């Protein structure tokens, strides 16, 4: 193994950022894949895998994943919710792997909501 120089510490830190931001639970973007029985039946697992692959292949290091149960709109599954820090969450419905990839590139990387896949902005009120 190569002996480290001082500047290498920063390189390792940078390489590990993906892992560490996940542990802090603090990312710039959070993707929630709805994984109720309905979601899984409609293909949510594939959507999850596709999105993980997107993160893997891109240079972003501050995207974190979460899963949630059924969101109540079973007929429109698979669904995901994207939250960028400081912005209202956006729910996307009727997803395919291709749509998920597009959402990743346009919304997460470039900050533009993919209107034709989006159901709504914001979330339901609780209590």
């Amino acid at each position: 193994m190569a002996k480290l120089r001082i500047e290498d510490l920063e390189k390792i830190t940078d390489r590990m950022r993906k892992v560490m931001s996940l542990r802090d639970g603090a990312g710039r973007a959070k993707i929630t894949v709805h994984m109720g029985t309905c979601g899984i039946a409609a293909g949510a697992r594939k959507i999850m895998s596709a999105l993980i692959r997107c993160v893997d292949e891109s240079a972003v290091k501050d995207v974190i994943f979460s899963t949630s149960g059924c969101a109540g709109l079973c007929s429109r599954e698979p669904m995901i919710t994207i939250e960028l820090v400081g912005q209202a969450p956006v729910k996307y419905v009727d997803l395919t792997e291709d749509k998920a990839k597009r959402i990743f590139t346009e919304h997460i990387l470039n900050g533009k909501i993919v209107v034709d896949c989006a159901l709504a902005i914001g979330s339901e009120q609780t209590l």
Partner: protein
Amino acid sequence: MKTYRTHLMLCAGTGCVSNGSYRIKAALEAEMAKHNLQEEIAVVMTGCNGFCAQGPVMTVQPDGIFYQLLTVEDIPHLVEEHLLKGRPVKRLMYTPPDAKAPVPKMSDIGFFRKQRLIALRNRGLIDPEKIEEYIARGGYRALAKALSSMSPEEIIEEVKNSQLRGRGGAGYPTGAKWQSAARHKSDVKYIICNADEGDPGAFMDRSIIEGDPHAVIEGMAIAGRAVGSSNGLVYIRAEYPIALERLIMAIGQARDYGLLGKGILGTDFDFDIDIFKGAGAFVCGESSAMRASIQGEPPEPSAKHTHATEAGLWEKPTVLNNVETLAVVPEIIWRGADWFAGIGTEKSKGTKVFSLVGKVKNTGLVEVPMGITLRDIIFDIGGGIQGDRKFKAVQTGGPSGGCIPAALLDMPVDYERLAAAGSMMGSGGMIVMDDETCMVDVARYFLDFLRDESCGKCTACREGVDVMHQIVSDICGGKGKEEHIPLLEELGQAVKDGSMCALGGTASNPVLSTLRYFRDEYEAHIRDRHCPAAVCKALITFSINPEKCKACLLCNKNCPQNAISGEKKKPQKIEQEKCVRCGVCRDVCRFEAVTVQ
């Protein structure tokens, strides 16, 4: 690095490992494979999380959901519900003693929320067996700073200004120790890390090495740079197998990366670390006895005519620092002395790690700012006394420390105040006692420990502790005499005065501090032949209250001595001459009919 969506941070500290965390790991991996989740979710084994009472514990990141008391049987449900379907499992979450609903997030649990982590900054967040994770959390940047932009004098000045004091017991200023060693010219100097943790119930050093070994290595390297030493040595007990294994692994990784060895980080600084395994003698934690042990001599303390910083190991200038002290050094160098000195009380800065054990609900490892009150530690973080019994005392400082009574619960904890109360900081053991604890029996326990551990060199300690133990045992055994109390006090002082090292010098503390605060208990044992806490077997009798007894015969069947007799459907009776006071009848009785006096 491969991307995972979730990390399962599963505790692999000694406590959780004993409770089966590696079996949990195997079950998780098998179950995740069933659901084809192994490419999405990784299990990460961390160091001790501190919440040992609830082990095995696991945090699911990035959600921050905290699970506790896991069993292999819980895993299929947990994997399917939470990891697959995104529904956290309430049943496996922690419910605080006085709450009805479980608290899902680790950050919201009182035990964790009130702590401030410096020495334990990486606990539960990294895999201690991966150096890259330590580096990613800011590891070795303090060493880089010390090597690239600070002179050795500046490093020492920074540590002096932080007012860091030794965390191993005596609280000697670390910066002053380093400065003294730096001043003495020598071709060879030693930096020794004291990991010979020996107090009953103390496990902070073990946890730090298990959970974050690189923090100690980095601290030692910085110390080496400051005093001009290239030779590090960790003196660690052989009965800490996990700590030893991870430390050896960490030293190997640091060497591979050039963080130990010659020309560290491309500079001209050389430093390497050896390990010396101790056999677990308590006295070896004392500096001169440790030196003798490393040199292959009998581990006996010797008179300190010169400081170890001038002529220590092999007569070379030597710095001996405790594990926790060394683990906070990188943070002081990185964040600066003012930051550290801004935490704590006037003369005790920073934080202290305590192992909180005994009759407290949340036993475990806690790190708190100096100056926090005992009440905060025991009731807010510790969750109060088991079974909601009455708090009686807390024993701090290990065998050489003392017992602090309930009246002093609001006392802020720092070096000076603990000493003024007749106890000491020591390495940070805290044994909580309730009203079912007999203070004379506690003194007897610690004297028994010290009697075994005295090296025997000084007569006062060797004979004095033994005689004190005999007297206290007599008091517990119902053979106490009026003159025993003044004799104990005189003897205690003599042992203090006549012993060379700190073990003997503090060996009478368990007796003297319990005499100071709980003299009435000694008097009750001696005058009334009565043990108020109903612990000392020679002084108690078990009896069955006929009004409460429902004649279920459970005690009758369970008594190992067949000492309980009575007809069916009639109250039972204990034959005192057969009874050995084991307490089984009281434990099995469902109607609280068995009383002890």
